[in-house]
Structure formats: structure tokens, C-alpha cells
């Protein structure tokens, strides 16, 4: 392997949702924790299940499986605590996963324009082509509200 090729390798955490594997940049992962009690309370953000308490922090739990594999997770083995950016601010968000996670080094191919917004790129590992997730795009945030209201505005403006 040449030095230039080595420099392009990045670290990723591979996670499993049902039968599929996805990747997140390792720098976006704060911790990997065992499932703990989820505290639920009324709210209207569909993807958020509730919150967990971790080291004194209250962390929202966001089930991304429905978006990524089309169904909710029936069992979960771990929570991946990912760092979610909100402008200059960052917050943790817990992503439930169904299997063991793995840290790998790989080269990422950039996402194409036709890819969904939650795809940050692609990598090849052990014969699989794996989506690298854009945590900011797959978890809800204030942007979702803006998009919703803009969409509503567009729909309302149509004859």
C-alpha cells in the first residue's frame, strides 16, 4: 500500500440494523452502551422513542431503522451514542442497533447527487458495499421543522 493510499483511509464504526450493515464515521461516535431504561413522555417527534440517562446526560433515543430498513427494531443489543451537530452546537443521540459493532479502516467513496440525504458516502468491506450514514441528516432536528413548513407552504400554494 502506498503512503498516499494509506492517508485516505478513515475509521468507521460498522453497525447492524436487522440484516443490513451501515457505517458511521468513528469520529462521530461518542460511546457504545448497553440498552438501559428508556424514559418516555408525550411529544410529537415521531422518530424519537424517549430518552436515556447516561453519565448525568439526558440523551434522546432515535430509532433510525424504519427509515433505513423499512421496519422498527424488534430487538436491540446496543446503543450507539452518536454526535449530532446543530449548527455550532453538538448533542448526543442514541441509535439502537441489533448486533455487535466493529471498528474498521476503509476508504470512503463520496455520495452521488442521486443518493438520499442521509448517505454521506459508500465503503467496501468484506465483499459488501456499505452506506456511510450522515447522522445529522438521519436524525430529527430544527431543520426538519423548516422543511416541513416549507413543504406545507409549497403544497398550499399549489392550485
Amino acid at each position, binding site marked *: 500500500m502506498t503512503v498516499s493510499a494509506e492517508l485516505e483511509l478513515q475509521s468507521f464504526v460498522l453497525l447492524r440494523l436487522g440484516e443490513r450493515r451501515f457505517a458511521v464515521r468513528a469520529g462521530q461516535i461518542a460511546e457504545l452502551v448497553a440498552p438501559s431504561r428508556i424514559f418516555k413522555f408525550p411529544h410529537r*417527534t415521531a422518530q424519537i422513542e424517549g430518552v436515556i*440517562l447516561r453519565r*448525568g446526560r*439526558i440523551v434522546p433515543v432515535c430509532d433510525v431503522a424504519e427509515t433505513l430498513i423499512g421496519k422498527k427494531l424488534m430487538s436491540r443489543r446496543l446503543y450507539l451514542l452518536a454526535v449530532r451537530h446543530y449548527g455550532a452546537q453538538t448533542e448526543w443521540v442514541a441509535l439502537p442497533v441489533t448486533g455487535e459493532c466493529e471498528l474498521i479502516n476503509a476508504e470512503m467513496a463520496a455520495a452521488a447527487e442521486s443518493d438520499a440525504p442521509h448517505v454521506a458516502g459508500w465503503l467496501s468491506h468484506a465483499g459488501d458495499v456499505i452506506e456511510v450514514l450522515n447522522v445529522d441528516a438521519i436524525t430529527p*432536528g430544527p431543520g426538519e421543522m423548516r422543511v416541513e413548513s416549507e413543504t406545507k407552504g409549497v403544497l398550499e400554494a399549489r392550485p
Partner: protein
Amino acid sequence: MRVAAPAKSAPTRSEQIIVFRIGSQLFAVSSASVQEVRSSDSFSGASTEISAPGLRKVRHVVRRGDRSLFIVSGALHFDLPPSPGTLAFVLRKTRTALLVDGIEKMTSMTRLQALPQSFCHEERQWYRGLTAIDQTVIPVVHPEGFLSAEELTLLDAAMPPPKNRDGESTEGTVSAA
């Protein structure tokens, strides 16, 4: 050798809260924002029915002098299973009397965490934030989050004409703050 004096830690600020229940769900509200706690029965004699389109959570209004106090079902506001609401919290600086099912305890919180930004819908108006009491996470409600300006306008428009203003009962009143 001079030894540095230990740094004095800033006194922890705490806020008195009432932990209450609607159905099986726990919530908290600052004690300072609760003007009165009344039994909901004590309101029934003084209240008038009201029906604003699309606003099922308010069924009754109580007139207090020139002001109207709208009785909000906490269960319907939060989309919880219907519950009768045995107590009413009259919320200070608002026109809301909130129906709840019971008070769990009065305690203090030393930390209020802002609602994570992943929560991005109406709940941002409902809650001031979240707190952990005895290792349980409880949302702390925003007293002004039960009726929006638009909802108040709808309710004002649906107000029945005033009748006997002297009939309001104060029976069942408990001072809360």
C-alpha cells in the same frame, strides 16, 4: 510554601417543583408558577361550558372578574388516554387551569436540561426542559405552553355571554406557593 485555598464551589441553585401525574405519566411544574391547587369538583359549580372548533382539550371556562380561566384537560393536551382530572392547577400569569390526576410529591430540582434539539415539534412549546429526579427523567412543563395565542383567540371568540359573576366558589382551594 503557600497552599492555595480550596476553591469555593458556587452554591447550587435549586427550584421547587411539583411532580404531578396525568394518567400514569409524570410531569413537573415549578411551584412558583402554580397559583392555586383546587379540586376539580370545586370548579364545576362555577364553570361554564365552552366549545371552540378543533379544541377538544378545553370544555369549561371559569370567569374571575374580568378574566376568564380556561380549564385545560392535561390528558387531551398531551394526547394521553382520557382521564377525569381530579385536581386543577391554576397557573400563574396565564389563563390556564390545568386538570391533572394527582400530585406525586413536592421536591426541588437542581438541574434543568434543555430539551434535546432532536425534539423538534410542539413539545418545544410544552416543556421548559427535562430533569432527573431519583434517576427518573421527568419533563418540566412550560405554564404558557398549554394554550397558544391562536388557541386563546379561538376560545375568546367561543366565550358564552357573561351571567352571574358572584357565583364562583372558592371551596377546595389549596394555596400552592
